[in-house]
């Protein structure tokens, strides 16, 4: 049952990315390009998602536990550290170069191209590299 629930979540996520145009790097880069022909579409996507999820999470947390799992698994840290900010900074550079963040990159597999294959393979390599780094740094 948990597999089916996760599939539905992935399906909704993928449909949302495709319907909103986030599977088009040109739209994403158009949003990030403040000094060009600025495309505000992404702010509607992020805004719609965050506001919907803000209320959704509040409803979810009224339950003592999830429907098909023992407990909610939420991050508890609230401190800022170099890894968080440094990692986010590196991610932003890659995002700005390609217009792909991880969700849209995988969601774009239906229109697979060699550059996208390279993007996905390098992203996975990057995840392995991040895991291999010492946890203090």
């Amino acid at each position, binding site marked *: 049952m948990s597999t089916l*629930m996760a599939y539905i979540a992935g399906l909704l996520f993928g*449909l949302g990315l495709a319907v909103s145009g986030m599977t088009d790097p040109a739209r994403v880069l158009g949003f990030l390009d403040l000094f060009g022909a600025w495309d505000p579409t992404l702010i509607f996507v992020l805004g719609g998602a965050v506001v919907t*999820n803000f209320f959704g999470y509040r*409803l979810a947390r009224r339950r003592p536990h999830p429907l098909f799992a023992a407990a909610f*698994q939420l991050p508890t840290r609230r401190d800022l550290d170099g890894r968080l900010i440094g990692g986010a900074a590196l991610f932003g550079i890659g995002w700005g170069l390609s217009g792909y963040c991880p*969700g849209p990159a995988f969601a774009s597999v239906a229109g697979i191209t060699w550059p996208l294959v390279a993007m996905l393979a390098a992203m996975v390599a990057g995840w392995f590299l991040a895991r291999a780094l010492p946890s203090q740094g």
Partner: protein
Amino acid sequence: MEWHSYLAGLVGGVLIGLSATWLMVTLGRIAGVSGIIGTLVTARPKGDSAWRLAFLLGLVSGPLALVIAGGELGNVLGRPEAVIGEPAGGVALMLVAGLLVGLGTGIGSGCTSGHGVCGLARLSPRSMAATLTFLITAMVTVFVVRHLIGGGA
């Protein structure tokens, strides 16, 4: 003004928000793509991998269904019949970008979905700081590539 595009963005955004809520209500998990798939491919945790793979299959099959349906529901810039846009560069650029995205989201524990969609909705100070950081470096990168190097391309 492209109100149709903005409306499509809003509708898609609500779907993404519903997805994140759904995953929290049913499995109690954060809908962070880099976390879900990154952990799946690098660690393959026993008893904690099937739902991750199912999420990935859903993520791929949603847009695929729209492609098969004919593409009218896509929002690709300048191509109303398309669902998936063209990459912004070639293989070499994507290798560099992909490595930075993987490394950065791995070190920084999240991407646009985990820190953006989910973290902001939880009002997490770490996610707010991360989202602000990657938005700034992404905008600076685009400025450098398009306006300093590319001459406004």
